[in-house]
């Protein structure tokens, strides 16, 4: 069995090793087996006929798919593509049934919410074993969340799976910040329940394609689609490649990371509230923002008015969350996180900003005070005051829907 990788893409790696220090698994272990250079050499060996064994499988499954090696590589090796294809070939032997079920649940908003409520109840009743809770790095699961309210039709906000089920407050903040910019936000229907990023990473190509098609259908029209989860944004922007259709490419062109979109309007952001203390904000760059979307500078542009920005000394190395990685490779993920936490502790920040839900849950579980940049902005500019109480907003959204009134009318 071969991986059917593009020989030119493989040949582009000259084994210089310039990627090594940027790779989280190499950093954690110092082993070529867990390095980009080693992984590429192994892919090459398999395609030359070496055969796939457990050692090869482990080399590939231990890759976080952070793509830091891609940014570091001067000869432009498209590592992400090589790894995605490899995972796809490996999926039949490497993704067991229980994992497939998990990926299925992500794709269905209703089962995710159901599981969340169950899980939340179990947590509260003390029924979740300690070891499992640690492994899953779960935050306290919400039993009931305020429903999001659309405010207009200027832009779409991608809602997603885990983010919407567990961190809806981030979406609320995003809507509040956009509202302060006088931008009305439309919300998609249940079709946008999952972008399929984790499926792509796991090599579940067909499921990913199915979810991509469904997601695209949930965003009709031409309005820009803003995404406040770095991993989802990277996935949506890759639909053009995933589906290989002109329509998908056009869809991808409408997708923006929310910070990327706001950065070009940063001069219109509301000022910080008078007298609020200027906090030291450490920036944690989600890999798929920094290495895939290359939108890391925009987070800084958006946050700069609201605090003193502090850079970590590890050049944005991965935290080990990696979508499902922290669950599937807990040991390595733990080692990687330890290094990240050390880098964070070294800068003595008041709060850490992370634009990705996976990173913030994973680091939050290690005690890091972490918030989404949109929450930090909404806090600092005092935008939360405008938030609707959970009991009332259902009525309000019904009213909005019936009156056809969007935008500025709903606030204050």
């Amino acid at each position, binding site marked *: 069995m071969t991986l059917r990788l593009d*020989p030119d893409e493989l040949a*582009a*790696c*000259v084994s210089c090793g310039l990627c*090594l*220090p940027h790779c989280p698994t190499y950093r954690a272990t*110092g082993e070529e087996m867990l390095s980009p250079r080693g992984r590429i050499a192994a892919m090459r060996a398999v395609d030359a006929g070496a055969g796939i064994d457990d050692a090869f499988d482990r080399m590939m499954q231990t890759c976080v798919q952070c793509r830091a090696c891609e940014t570091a590589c*001067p000869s432009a090796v498209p590592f992400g593509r090589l790894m995605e294809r490899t995972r796809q070939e490996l999926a039949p032997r490497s993704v067991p049934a229980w994992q497939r079920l998990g990926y299925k649940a992500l794709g269905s908003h209703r089962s995710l919410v159901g599981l969340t409520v169950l899980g939340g109840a179990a947590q509260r009743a003390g029924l979740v074993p300690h070891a499992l809770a640690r492994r899953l790095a779960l935050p306290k699961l919400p039993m009931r969340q305020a429903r999001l309210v659309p405010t207009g039709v200027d832009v779409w906000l991608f809602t997603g799976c885990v983010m919407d089920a567990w961190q809806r407050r981030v979406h609320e903040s995003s809507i509040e910040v956009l509202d302060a910019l006088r931008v009305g936000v439309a919300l998609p229907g249940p079709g946008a329940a999952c972008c399929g990023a984790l499926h792509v990473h796991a090599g579940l190509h067909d499921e990913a394609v199915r979810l991509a098609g469904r997601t695209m259908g949930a965003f009709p029209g031409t309005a820009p689609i803003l995404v406040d989860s770095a991993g989802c944004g990277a996935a949506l922007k890759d639909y053009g490649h995933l589906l290989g259709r002109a329509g998908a490419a056009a869809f991808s062109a409408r997708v923006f990371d929310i910070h990327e979109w706001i950065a070009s309007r940063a001069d219109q952001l509301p000022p910080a509230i008078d007298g609020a203390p200027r906090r030291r904000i450490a920036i944690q760059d989600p890999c798929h923002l920094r290495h895939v979307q290359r939108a890391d500078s925009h987070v800084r542009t958006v946050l700069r008015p609201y605090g003193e920005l502090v850079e970590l000394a590890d050049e944005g190395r991965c935290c080990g969350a990696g979508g499902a990685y922290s669950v599937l490779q807990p040991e390595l993920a733990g080692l990687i996180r330890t290094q990240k936490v050390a880098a964070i502790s070294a800068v003595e920040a008041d709060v850490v900003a992370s634009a990705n839900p996976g990173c913030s849950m994973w680091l939050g579980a290690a005690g890091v005070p972490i918030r989404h940049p949109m929450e930090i902005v909404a806090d600092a500019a005092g935008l939360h005051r405008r938030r609707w109480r959970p009991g009332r907003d259902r009525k309000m959204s019904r009213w909005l829907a019936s009156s056809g009134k969007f935008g500025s009318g709903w606030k204050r």
Partner: protein
Amino acid sequence: MTTAALVRDLGVALAPDRVRAGALELALYERDASMLTGQASVVCFPTSAGEVSAAVRVCRDHGRPFVPRGSGTGLAGGATPLGQVAPVVIVTTKMNKILEVDSEQRFAWVEPGVLNLDLSTAVAHLGLHFAPDPSSQQSCSVGGNVANNSGGPHCLLYGVTSAHVLAMEVVLADGSVVVLGGIDPEPEGLDLRGAFVGSEGTMGIATRIAVRLTPLPPCVATLLADFSTIHDAAAAVTGVIAAGIIPAALEMMDATIVEVVEAYVHAGFPTDAAAVLLVEVDGLRGGVDVCTSDVEAILKAHGAREVRVAADAAERAAWWKGRKSAFGAIARIAPSYYLHDCVIPRTRLVDVLDEVGRIASSRDLVLGNVFHAGDGNLHPLIVFDRRAPGVLEKVHEAGRKIIETCVAAGGSLSGEHGIGIEKREAMDLVFTEVDLEAQKWLRDAFDPEGRCNPEKILPRGGSRCGDISSLPPGAWV
């Protein structure tokens, strides 16, 4: 004794999970960044000097050679395992702690696996850095720097690694541990530290290294000059040095290199220039200002079309990132390249570059030049696709001609990458038999049984260049 017994004994000496003999893993350690391949029998990862010593004793008991390895970024096959029997590769990457920093006396004791740039980053808050800055500094280990006596752009002013290593603890081939050199400026006795630096892993494994830390310059100016001929650029280099100015760094890139580098870093390099010079001056503000305008005048007098001074630290960093990524970025033209590392007298730059260019063009080969112009350390790179028929012979021949040209101009084989496997058969071009014999004695004194990184540096007789006829795709010789 069998490899299984070797693995078992190493497992006892270290820990079973840090001793590996799986086929796939061994394959990853059969070469360094050079693609000159060998064969390892076992790979092991010690975490302390004690473990290194124990592993070396096991090798001795089993009659096995061993090869020290840091990050494996060497370009001359130094960490490629060769030997009558397949060697044990002893990897230092898990020995990566900075043990002690003395900011007053300005030195640090570090483990060999500490990465060059990590060390500088870790002491930056004290206003210090580790001055040798190979282009691979983000990835290469201090142990590898010591073994290869590595240089870098800023070594023009600050000196190469040997000027920055005070002492080291070394595990010798019999497993005994010695300390060479010392923190005192002039330790008594023979300079064994000096002998060890640059020994390419053939005299033992450094397990702790005391390095000198250098104050960060208070003020830095970086100039980028573009020229419409390589000739003018080379003459400008000679002009700067002749004026009595030693910049911190003085680097040249030709059009081929500038093009690929710009495609990677987007740093605003002039892609229509025939050659670009990157000059850095540092020191106290007043001196830097004077030097900057002097250098600028000299560059212009030698035909520079434009001289730009980096506006801020970000621009400076982008320029250096470009320069330091050149070796990797070249793969954007073709997937393989053959790199030389000759040093020539600076006064011969112009004619040697001309001749090197002719050697390549007369064979229809693409050649790029990116090098430490200030000290005459050339890095001519022949870029090729090994899948093209007949190309390897041409590359091979051009390589030999380039070495001969440089040596004939009064140059030497290697400025900083080392001899390793790659250039050992060319050693007799620069050394007499007596020289080589003396080198062999020194080596024998450290390692009488020849078990420490065998078949490196000293020639065995045979062909001149590394054997590049049997390389896998992506070969980078």
